[in-house]
């Protein structure tokens, strides 16, 4: 085994969840029929408890656009996407020197923006909108797109 590239791009929790859903993890209540390993189901279960289960690709792109003015590092953006902080105290540990770099108003503004882009879910998350199983070739093509889309938000800062 040879590691060609240890870091070929970071993924947000949402992208991993989306990938597992596209493998059919969401719509198999028996957990036997879909080609998803038990260890992958564990990851799927964990991600379904996080805020990633309510996010959409559009919302993430919108957030990355809107957060450009705050001049955040990639790792900070990734962490905000994964945790969806909506109070200032949740921002403090994520963003280094947040009070110096952004000021109290900036932090407040950022939390409001996060809440507006990723609203608190009112209904059950819709996990049904996943690609059909059995279209291997298409899934591969989609995976290529995920790579591109996945790296895009990371490279914006």
């Amino acid at each position, binding site marked *: *085994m*040879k*590691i*060609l*590239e*240890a*870091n*070929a*791009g*970071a*993924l*947000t*929790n949402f*992208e*991993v969840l989306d*990938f*597992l859903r596209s*493998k059919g993890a969401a719509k198999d209540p028996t957990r036997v029929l879909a080609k998803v*390993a038990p*260890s*992958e189901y*564990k*990851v799927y*279960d*964990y991600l379904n408890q*996080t805020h990633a289960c309510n996010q959409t690709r559009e919302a993430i792109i919108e957030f990355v656009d809107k957060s450009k003015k705050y001049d955040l590092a990639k*790792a900070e953006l*990734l*962490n905000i996407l*994964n*945790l969806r902080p909506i*109070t200032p*105290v*949740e*921002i*403090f*540990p*994520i963003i280094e020197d947040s009070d110096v770099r952004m000021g109290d108003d900036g932090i407040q503004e950022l939390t409001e923006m996060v809440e507006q882009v990723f609203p608190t879910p009112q209904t059950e998350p819709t996990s049904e909108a996943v690609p059909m199983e059995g279209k*291997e070739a298409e899934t*591969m093509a989609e*995976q*290529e797109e995920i*790579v591109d889309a*996945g790296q895009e938000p990371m490279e914006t800062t």
Partner: protein
Amino acid sequence: MFYLSRIEHTLRVPPSMLHLPILDAIKGELEKLFLDKVVAKLGLCISVYDIRSVDGGFIFPSDGAATYKVVFTLIVFRPYAGEIIIGKVKESDANGLRISLGFFEDIYVPIHLLPSPSEFKPDPKNGGKRRWVWDYDGQPYDIYETDEIKFRIHSIDYPAIPVDQQPNESNSKFQMEEQPKENVNVKPFAPMVVTATIDYDGLGPVSWWDGSGDADADAEAEAEEDS
């Protein structure tokens, strides 16, 4: 938390997989080989993301299997130092906390990375079972097992696989009976150990910071005991 990693591997595909399309066969073999395993310095392999190229298909003399050189991408779990993650408290003992993510459970918070001053106190409501308590200006903040907890990654270690055996001190015939007792408190080998800290504003059990304060955490704990 999750990364893509590109790997090249020389893979033996057994003849029993010949009836499958080649990509399916290779993907199945790769999943058997890598899924839920830790690769040192790379992290915990979650999933095979895609297969980039397949070369060869050489059959070695006196072997029935085709050997391919495959370049593929894995999704790996590899938190970076400074990242904030939410998990669940799995255990608390005199050495600190152990946190679980469901798919990964070797996350430890040692005593010196707990908020200070913290104390390991018996919990009168829970039959004297001990839990960690953060004493903030005389106000106790408890960390219960099964609490949702937010932590920051401090460091990641990939311990080498232990090869040398423990020297046997006693050669008595009761050795077999004694051995299990000694091993009770020995941690099983973990190929990836994450050290985390909760000593910062906004870190620690989620209930500490959601505005409702400790009263809420107490109420939750009581509700759990009742149920």
